[in-house]
């Protein structure tokens, strides 16, 4: 396959306060997202202090193995995305596209594993109203799940744009998509230990 897609690279001064890698608007969003999830974790800890036994029993019902596998899957996906950005910046479009496809495939693997885990919980009746722990579990992982789906859609759009030889893609667009995807990593890196390991 001949790749004629154009990646437009503009020299950006990342040291400037108004142009962090991925763009200022996306970084404001990332900070707000991390703040919101952080606040939710503080709420989770507050209720854990009220009902420590219940939280210990509820955590024991989670599938730590699947959670760990999903952590590795998401970190692998993040690695592929960082490699894709690196390749595009080196004007190696073919490798960049391949890494982006690998990112999307591993992202889909995360979705499938999480969906399976949700099925396991629902099969034994552990829904959102089971207790306070599971309310937090469903809300936090559910919102994260939606972020991953949105991230996959963004990456797919960028991939199609890069593969379309008639359009030119800016590296800033790829970086912004990558930053959103890494945000999913970041949130999961806090959610996974808090929900599955600590209590």
């Amino acid at each position, binding site marked *: 396959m001949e790749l004629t897609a154009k990646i437009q690279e503009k020299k950006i001064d*990342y*040291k*400037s*306060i108004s142009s*962090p*890698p*991925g763009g200022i608007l996306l*970084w404001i969003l*990332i*900070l707000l997202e*991390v*703040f919101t*999830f*952080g606040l939710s*974790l*503080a709420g*989770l*800890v507050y209720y*854990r*202090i009220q009902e*420590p036994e219940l939280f210990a029993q509820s955590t024991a019902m989670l599938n*730590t193995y699947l959670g*760990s596998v999903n*952590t*590795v899957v998401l*970190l*692998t996906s*993040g*690695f592929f*995305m*960082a*490699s894709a*950005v*690196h390749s595009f910046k080196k004007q190696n479009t073919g490798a960049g596209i391949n890494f982006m496809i690998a990112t999307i495939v591993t992202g889909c693997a995360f979705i499938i594993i999480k969906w399976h885990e949700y099925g396991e919980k629902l099969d034994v009746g552990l829904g959102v109203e089971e207790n306070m722990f599971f309310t937090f579990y469903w809300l936090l992982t559910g919102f994260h799940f939606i972020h991953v789906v949105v991230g996959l859609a963004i990456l797919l759009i960028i991939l199609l744009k890069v593969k379309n030889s008639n359009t030119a893609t800016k590296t800033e667009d790829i970086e912004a998509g*990558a*930053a959103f995807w*890494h945000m999913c*990593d*970041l949130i999961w*890196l*806090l959610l*996974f*230990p*808090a929900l*599955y*390991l*600590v*209590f």
Partner: protein
Amino acid sequence: MKRLILVYLGLIILTIVSAYASGMEMDQAWIPAGIVMALAAFKFILVVMEYMEMRKAHGIWKFSIVFMAVIAALIVGIFGGVQIV
């Protein structure tokens, strides 16, 4: 590219270590919880600085995101592992 691979391997090793640490039996339950959340914060910072290339960014961005991660990890690590009798 070599740097990205090294960071990836580091992240995987830290994930394995945190899974191991969470299973440790200790009189002070906050110790394994603290270790797990400290490792989570470290992984968070690695992803931000290396994968998201924030090491190249202005200090205020680096400080803001690292500060939030550390505070979240501290809250969960300290209060999440406290034994309540």
